């Protein structure tokens, strides 16, 4: 009996994942822009801001690399999650909500789909960093970085799904970048060190979950960090658990 029930859930999860992934690969522009955008930022920031550092631009570029790995997760993960508001608009969501699948299954299926998108991109960027940007990875540090990105993506995608499930129409989609994505990215310490900030900004950065992901990645990739790695991981995992709970609740109350 338990076997039958889990077969039902697994098939449902697979179907939802498959759909997200298929849509992602069919929309070539989304794939290209999501890899190109962080690279674009990386070079502008890395060379622009890095040039203040008197011929030591390379140090700064390496310093911000972990931040740009996190950036792919923030941008594509959150957007992919919030994409569910588009499903509402095209009525595909109705087709999903009318099936016998539980709302919890729908939530996790969607999350897994968006997760695949976000991780493919950030892992791809990690690879580019190793091959072309002179970032030194060992096999353990690469695997550990991937694990951190995985944990971080979980929470961010759930957050995106939650925001999307509350939105009534895709018109508000643009507001997400102004009020969620940019604050998350800019306050994460991705492009500046966390140590010498004024008090109020110190507090804001500590509220931002992305800060802990950037810090953990910096520890793994560059061997230096502002906070203990265990604290970083604990915060990220707690954030994931909290978002999963809020997310399943949000999906249960989801109406059309």
């Amino acid at each position, binding site marked *: 009996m338990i076997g039958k029930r889990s077969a039902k859930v697994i098939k449902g999860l697979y179907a939802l994942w498959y759909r997200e992934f298929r849509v992602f690969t069919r929309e070539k522009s989304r794939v290209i822009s999501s890899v190109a955008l962080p690279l674009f930022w990386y070079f502008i920031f890395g060379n622009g801001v890095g040039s203040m550092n008197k011929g030591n631009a390379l140090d700064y570029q390496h310093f911000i690399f972990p931040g740009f790995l996190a950036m792919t997760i923030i941008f594509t993960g959150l957007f992919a999650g919030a994409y569910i508001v588009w499903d509402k608009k095209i009525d595909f969501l109705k087709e999903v909500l*009318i099936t016998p699948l539980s709302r919890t299954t729908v939530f996790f299926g969607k999350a897994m789909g968006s997760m695949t998108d976000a991780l493919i991109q950030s892992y791809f960027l990690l690879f580019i960093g190793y091959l072309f940007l002179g970032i030194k990875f060992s096999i353990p540090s690469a695997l550990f970085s991937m694990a951190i990105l995985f944990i971080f993506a979980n929470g961010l995608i759930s957050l995106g799904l939650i925001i999307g499930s509350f939105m009534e129409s895709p018109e508000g989609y643009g507001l997400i970048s102004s009020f969620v994505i940019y604050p998350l990215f800019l306050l994460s310490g991705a492009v500046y060190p966390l140590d010498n900030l004024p008090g109020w900004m110190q507090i804001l950065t500590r509220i931002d979950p992305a800060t802990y992901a950037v810090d953990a990645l910096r520890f793994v990739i560059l061997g230096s960090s502002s906070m203990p790695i265990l604290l970083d991981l604990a915060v990220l995992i707690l954030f994931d658990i909290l978002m999963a709970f809020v997310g399943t609740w949000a999906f249960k109350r989801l109406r059309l």
Partner: protein
Amino acid sequence: MVLCPDSLCYNASMDIIRIENLTKKYGGLTAVDGISFSVKEGEIFGLLGPNGAGKTTTLMMLSTLLKPTSGTAGVDGYDVVKQQGLVRNSIGMVFQDPSSDTLLSGYENLKLHALMYNLPLREIDSRIDKVLELVDLQKRKHDVVKKYSGGMRRRLEIARGLLHAPKVFFLDEPTLGLDPQTRDHIWEYIQNLAKQTRMTIIVTTHYMEEAEKLCDRIAIIDHGKIAALDSPMNLKRALGGDKVILKGRIEIEALRKFPFVKKAEVIDGAVHLSVEQAGKNLQELLCSAGDVENVEVHSPDLNDVFLNLTGRAMREEGEASSYIQDITRAT
């Protein structure tokens, strides 16, 4: 003691849908206002009414996507509020607006549906072929839905709704916005379906010809209430006679004196009469009608039934607003 009008009383064991006092309010607006009816297993049941009458809202409540404000509804013996999962297992639905994913192929859309309904893996492909055959789409199976025409997409969604062999099949305006030829095809599919399976079909429409041709029974809905419920034949019979429309300077009082004139009223400057055996009595009628410029005689259709019940014509209203809907959707 059973409290319900005669036309609504059936043997309870045969009722696959039972609705009692179902109501849905949106703030101050009452979209569905305390409706009650039952549908027998194997019936094709039509909900007929203008746009905004509450048809779609009723279907949404029956399919668990909307929570009723009050009242109860049971589908296949399960409560639509308390046993949502079981209800959803028993039903299939074709939504008014397209709900397939245009970036996926027809086959992929169906496959996803099959997985979400937990169909046995080794049956999925053969079932997909079967439903695609039913709606005549085998050749376009692997095309992306983006490349389908509106009618093909609707047919795909009908096939999808049938894939898990539901006991009750809901179709919400299945032919809205389609050209007449495609519309005929779709009705043909639905009719074949009803013949081949013993599925109960609930269909909403504002096209009266369709409701008349297809449905065993029809509930006419207006302003969230059921104005009448019966077979199309009985609904028309209740009007008592043929329809005669006279234009010109008509002496309506003189006409009212004839025993075969059941009803006479002025609508949009023309005199509308209900006449028994119009073929036989027309000559006598015209002799006393005054200065007649134009005569129309036809046997009553459901539009006349609606007009008689509500004092408004449904046809113009329905098409005008669906026209507006189409425009707004296109932009």
